[in-house]
């Protein structure tokens, strides 16, 4: 137990020492709330560098590299004089609270395991102990969770069960604060705004399936959190906040890419929306698209070689090349969007993406339907999805309420740059439906893969809806 505590505490300190570098340009609450997810990402990226470069994951090497990274951030913090006297007390309180809460979660192990969970835990061990990258593992799931669970080998604990409640805690606090103070340039009164944000978060948390995910050893909740941070960070930057939000968004988007097999495809949605916008400078766009493309291409090039001679069900060598190709096409798209003659076409980007995804979905339905006994199977599959959303998926009334609120929100007064959320949600919905047609194992119950994937979008959707309603009902009190 103590080893797992030390690992989680290390991740928090790592994330905090990284985020403190941006303390002049970031709201303190965001700085603290992003520290843990960023710490998790940074440590995973460190191990990813080991794996990409073919370095063997010796325990001493991983521990040395981890502490070297922490030391480097700490030195940079000291150089920036980040730990002033008034800074120290909140940091100490934060770290003590983190320690106390992680001890609580370490003591109360209500882990929820499925065979997927087992595959993650066992896969983590395999990654830590084997000399090469096992193609069989990487063809089924993203590398992110495997790496996280490989920590058990380096820090000597069995499996990482306390991570998920801690992530849920940070996610909920981040959700509440981002809803409470989305336009933090203007100070707002605490009571009613906080009550509203707290109730909105509680509404999501009172959903059985979301609460279950807080102890479920899986990647869904992690993905949902990082996808939310990525889109939220991009939105903050679009609204003119400091470019540190771009860094946060890039790190979160890359984390989401590595968490799930379909991650690279879903990550294209914010990338395309970013290319299409006029609100960001060319420099910002180049940094964003180039860094995401380089990181994704480097990893999938590695996978291309790992998969040579191996036929994976979800990922294989051909699909790895396909991912590299579409990201290179995004770079080309960015270059073309800078051309004077084509620049005015940029605004058509988001609707064009929606139409393309809708066309893709229709095409898959039509072609799959022709091969599935006149579409009976497709109707049955969507029937299962609907039954799960409304009854057996553990969602309670959540999706029914969110669906109607979303429809209402689309027609309500806009808040700045809200189309980023609207397009992300609609595009995700279409992509989700298209990808769903290719998977097997449809079943009634929460364990259905499509049902679990709904966690990926629910925080972005919830934020969009509740912010829209908040803008409307607190009209006279927000900026």
């Amino acid at each position, binding site marked *: 137990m103590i080893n797992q505590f030390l690992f989680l505490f290390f991740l928090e300190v790592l994330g905090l020492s990284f985020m403190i570098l941006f303390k002049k340009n970031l709201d303190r609450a965001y700085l603290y709330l992003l520290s843990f997810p960023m710490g998790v990402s940074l440590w995973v990226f460190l191990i990813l560098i080991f794996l990409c470069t073919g370095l063997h994951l010796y325990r001493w090497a991983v521990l040395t590299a981890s502490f070297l990274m922490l030391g480097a951030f700490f030195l940079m913090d000291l150089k920036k004089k980040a730990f002033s006297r008034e800074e120290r007390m909140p940091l100490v309180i934060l770290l003590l609270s983190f320690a106390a809460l992680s001890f609580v979660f370490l003591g109360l*192990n209500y*882990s*929820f*395991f*499925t*065979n997927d*969970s*087992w*595959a993650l835990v*066992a896969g983590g*061990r*395999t990654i830590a102990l*084997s000399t090469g990258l*096992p193609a069989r593992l990487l063809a089924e799931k993203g590398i992110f969770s495997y790496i996280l669970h490989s920590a*058990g080998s380096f820090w*000597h*604990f*069995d*499996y990482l069960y306390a991570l998920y409640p801690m992530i849920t805690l940070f996610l909920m606090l981040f959700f509440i604060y981002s809803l409470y103070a989305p336009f933090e340039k203007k100070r707002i009164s605490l009571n*009613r705004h906080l*009550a*509203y944000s707290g*109730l*909105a978060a*509680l*509404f999501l948390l*009172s*959903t*059985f399936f979301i609460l279950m995910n807080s102890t479920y050893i899986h990647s869904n909740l992690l993905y949902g959190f990082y996808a939310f941070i990525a889109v939220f960070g991009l939105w903050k930057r679009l609204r003119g906040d400091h470019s540190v939000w771009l860094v946060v968004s890039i790190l979160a988007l890359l984390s989401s890419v590595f968490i799930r097999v379909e991650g690279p495809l879903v990550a294209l949605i914010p990338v395309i929306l970013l290319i299409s916008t006029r609100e960001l400078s060319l420099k910002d766009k180049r940094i964003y698209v180039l860094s995401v493309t380089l990181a994704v291409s480097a990893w999938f090039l590695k996978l291309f070689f790992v998969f040579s001679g191996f036929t994976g069900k979800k990922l294989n060598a051909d699909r790895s090349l396909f991912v590299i190709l579409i990201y290179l096409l995004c770079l080309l798209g960015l270059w073309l969007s800078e051309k004077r003659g084509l620049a005015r076409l940029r605004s058509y980007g988001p609707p064009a993406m929606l139409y393309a995804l809708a066309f893709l979905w229709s095409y898959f339905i039509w072609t799959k339907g022709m091969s599935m006994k006149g579409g009976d199977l497709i109707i049955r599959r969507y029937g299962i999805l609907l*039954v799960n959303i409304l*009854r057996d998926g*553990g*969602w*309670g*009334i*959540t999706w029914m*309420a969110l669906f109607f609120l979303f429809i209402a929100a689309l027609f309500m007064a806009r808040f700045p740059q809200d189309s980023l959320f609207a397009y992300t949600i609609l595009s995700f919905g279409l992509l989700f439906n298209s990808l769903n047609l290719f998977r097997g*194992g449809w*079943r*009634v*119950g*929460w*364990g259905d893969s499509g049902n679990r994937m709904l966690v990926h979008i629910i925080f972005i959707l919830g934020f969009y809806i509740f912010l829209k*309603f908040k803008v*409307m*009902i*607190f*009209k*006279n009190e927000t900026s």
Partner: protein
Amino acid sequence: MMNKKLRNMMLFLPPAILVIFNVVFILSYLGGKKGYLRTAYQIVLNDFYGLQSAAFVVVLAILCGLGLRKKISGAAFLRRIFLIFLLFMIAVNLSFFPELNRDTQGQESKRFRRLRTPHLEEAVRSSAAKSAGAIEKYLQLGNDLNGKTLIVPWPSEDEEFGLFIGFVDPGAVVRKKYPYLIGADDLDFLKTFDARTSRFSIKNEMTESLVIVSEDPDAEEFTLFRNDRTIFFFSPEIVKRLPVNLHD
């Protein structure tokens, strides 16, 4: 003139009580003191949704009345409506927690049974009939195994995943993915994992363990119709190494 505080209390108290009641109930259930509270809950709130809906309508009516008498502004009216709506959604969501939908015998409540569509019931029944014999046959084997130590090696690189652990809801159809299924209804199994030796052991604390091993590699699916939620999948190689002769 109604006191402002009293008016707000009237508006927010009913949904807040429902939320608190649900939370207390869930906590008490988790804490193991379920008997009395559960009975009280069922007597007081037999038709939970009916009561919640009625309370919601009453609160809305009070709000509308206040709005019409211009006691509160339009923005304040909207704000309260939405906050109350959120409170009710929380209460309804909590009442959907699976444990709340079972009666004292652990059966699904009538409300849930009523919601089941006939074709799904039929699908579950037909697949259950096919595999019922196989499962019943191995229930006894499961009982025999209970309490004995089972050592399972950590899956190695050159062997297919040796062991999978999965939770399956009662009534769910388990598609055949691996020919050999072994199940146990207790997470304690996981806690017996020893990182140093990379081994699990099933110990006597497992009260409701159930082991299902299919010897029919061609079986397409199994249906679990008891409250068995966990299934362990073992590869044929590992089953051969089990310390108990499953074919006796």
